[in-house]
C-alpha cells in the first residue's frame, strides 16, 4: 500500500528524514516509535504532502505522493492529529461532517449517503451522544474520539495517527487503541500510528518501526524491536524489558538514573558513558 524507498525529506534549513525505506501492507497495524526529534512527525508530514519536496520514492498505491492531488489523497489517507487548536466553537456534528469535504464539489450539499457515513463514523467512535456539543468544551478523551470520527468520515484506506494518546490517561489510551484495533481487524483499515508509550505500542501494533535521528534503527515485531539493547541504544536510557503476564507482549520499564550503576547488568548503554 505504502512503499517507501531511500526517502529523504525535511525543511529548507534541515534534512530530518535521511534515506529511509519501509513498506506498509494492506491491513497492517504499524507503530512508529522513537525519541523526540527522530523524524516521526516529519515522516507523516511528507506522506500527506504537508512538506512538498522529498527525494527517493514515496509510493502510495504504486503512485508517487507528489503526483496525487491533495483532494484525491484526502479520500485515501486521513490523519488524526495529536491536538488541534479550535478557533471557533463548531458543533461536534458539523466538525465531523467536514470529513466529507474531499468528496464534495463546491456547489454540492451533503447527501443522504454522506449523512450515513458521518453517522457511521460517529457511532463507531462513540461520539453520537456528543452531536450537539461544542468542540471547544470537550474533554481530551472526547476530543480525540471526535478527531477520529472526522478522519473516518473521510472513508480512508490508510489512517495515520500522530500520538493520539499522549494527552490521555491510561483508561482513555486503552479505549482509543482498542477502537483502532477493532477498525483494523473488522474493517480492514490500515493503520500507522506514532506512539510515545512503548508499552501500548507493543501491546497493540503488529509491527513496530523504531526511528533514531531520521533513520530507521530497527523494524519488526514488538518482540524483535522492544529489546533492552534497542531501547537503551536509541533512548540513551537504562531499561528493563519483561513480558506482560497476560498478553505475553514485551513491556519496558525505565530504571531510575541513580540506579544505573547497580542494576546488576554489567554493560553500559551506548552513548551514556
Amino acid at each position: 500500500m505504502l512503499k517507501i524507498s531511500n526517502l529523504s525529506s525535511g525543511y529548507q534549513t534541515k534534512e530530518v528524514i535521511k534515506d529511509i525505506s519501509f513498506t506498509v501492507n494492506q491491513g497492517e497495524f504499524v507503530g512508529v516509535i522513537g525519541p523526540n526529534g527522530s523524524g516521526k512527525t516529519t515522516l507523516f508530514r511528507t506522506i500527506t504532502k504537508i512538506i512538498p519536496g522529498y527525494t527517493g520514492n514515496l509510493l502510495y498505491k504504486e503512485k508517487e505522493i507528489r503526483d496525487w492531488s491533495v483532494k484525491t489523497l484526502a479520500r485515501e489517507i486521513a490523519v488524526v492529529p495529536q491536538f488541534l487548536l479550535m478557533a471557533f466553537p463548531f458543533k461536534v456534528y458539523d466538525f465531523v461532517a467536514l470529513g466529507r469535504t474531499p468528496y464534495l464539489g463546491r456547489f454540492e450539499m451533503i447527501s443522504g449517503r454522506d449523512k450515513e457515513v458521518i453517522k457511521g463514523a460517529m457511532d463507531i467512535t462513540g461520539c453520537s451522544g456528543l452531536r450537539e456539543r461544542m468542540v471547544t468544551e470537550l474533554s481530551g478523551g472526547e476530543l480525540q474520539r471526535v478527531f477520529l470520527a472526522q478522519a473516518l468520515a473521510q472513508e480512508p484506506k490508510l489512517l495515520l495517527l500522530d500520538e493520539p494518546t499522549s494527552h490521555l490517561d491510561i483508561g482513555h489510551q486503552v479505549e482509543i487503541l482498542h477502537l483502532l484495533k477493532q477498525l483494523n481487524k473488522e474493517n480492514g483499515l490500515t493503520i500507522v500510528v506514532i506512539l510515545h508509550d512503548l508499552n501500548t505500542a507493543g501491546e497493540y501494533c503488529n509491527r513496530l518501526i523504531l526511528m533514531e535521528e531520521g533513520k530507521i534503527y530497527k523494524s519488526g515485531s514488538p518482540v524483535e524491536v522492544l529489546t533492552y539493547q534497542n531501547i537503551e541504544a536509541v533512548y540513551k536510557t537504562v531499561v528493563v524489558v519483561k513480558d506482560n503476564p497476560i498478553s505475553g507482549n514485551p513491556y519496558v520499564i525505565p530504571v531510575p538514573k541513580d540506579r544505573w550503576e547497580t542494576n546488576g547488568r554489567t554493560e553500559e548503554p551506548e552513548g551514556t558513558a
Partner: protein
Amino acid sequence: MNKILIISLLLVVLVGVVIICLGIGPTGISYKYLTGTDNDTESKIIYEVRLPRILGALLVGLGLAVAGAVLQAILRNPLAEPYTLGISGGAVLGVALCLIVPFLAVTKFSFPLMAFLGALVSVIIVYVITSRHRFSVSSLVLSGVILSFICSSLVLLIFSVSKPTEIQSMLFFLMGSFATIDYPIIKVITIPLIAGVLTLVFFSRDIDVLTLGDEKASHLGIAPHRVRAFLFIITSVITGCCVAVSGMIGFVGLMIPHIMRSIVGPKSRNLFIASALSGAIFLVVSDTLARSVIAPAELPVGVITGIVGGVFFIGMLINAKNI
C-alpha cells in the same frame, strides 16, 4: 435555535427597517409614501434622497459584515476585519489618489476601481510580509496595523498638497459617510459586491476547513495557501466596493459577525448569511440616525458605528474569555 427561523426573522426585520427608515428624515416622519402620494417634493425626497442612501447603507453593511466574518475565519482570529488588516486603509488611499492624479479625477467611477486596487495592493503587501512568517496571526495583525498607519499618513500627505475645497469631500471618506451617495455609484458597486458575497457563500465549506488550521485543511483536501489567496482577493473586491461609496466605516465587520456567531454558530454559510442581513440592518439604522438626530445637519455614520462599536469592543474585552 432553528437557524432558518433566525435568518427569516432577520430578513423580515431588514424589510421592516427599510420601510420604516424610508419614512424618517429631516423633513419629519411620514408614511404617506406607502399608500402612494401626489406630492412631488415628498416622493422626490423618498426616492431620490432617502432610497439611495438606504440602499447604499444596506449594501455596505452587508459587505463589511461578510468581509469581517470571512477574515475572522481564515485568519482564525475573532478580532480581524477589513480595517485590522489595513485593507480599508489601502482602499481609502486609492480613493484619495483620485484627488491628485488628474486623469483619475475625471469621473466618480474611478472611486470603486481605485478603492479595489488600493485594497488589493494592501492585501498583497500583507501577504508577502506574512508569508515569511507562515501567516502567523500576530504577523498578519501587526503588518495590518502598520500598513493602516502608512496609508493614513499618505492620505494626510495628499491632503496637505490639495486644495481645501477638495479636502472637504475627502473628509467624509475618512470619517465614513453616505452623504455623497447617488444611484450611478450604487449601480457600479452592486454587481461586484453581491457577486463577491455569493462567491464567499459558495466557498463556505472551504472556509470552515481553513478555520481548523493549514495542516488539517490539507489533510481534508483543501490547498490552504491558494484558497486563502483567492479569498483575500474576493474580500478586497467587497471592501473596495464598500469604501468607494462610504469611506472608512469601522467596527461593523468586527461586531456583527461576533454577535451572529454566538447566535447561529461558527458554521460559515449560516454565519455569512446572518451577518449579511444583520450588517445591513445595523448600518441602515445607523445611517438613519446619522441623518436625523441633529437634522438639518448630519453626523458621519462612521461616528455612530465608532461609538457603538467602541463600547461593544470594550464590553467584549471586559468579558473576554478567549481573545
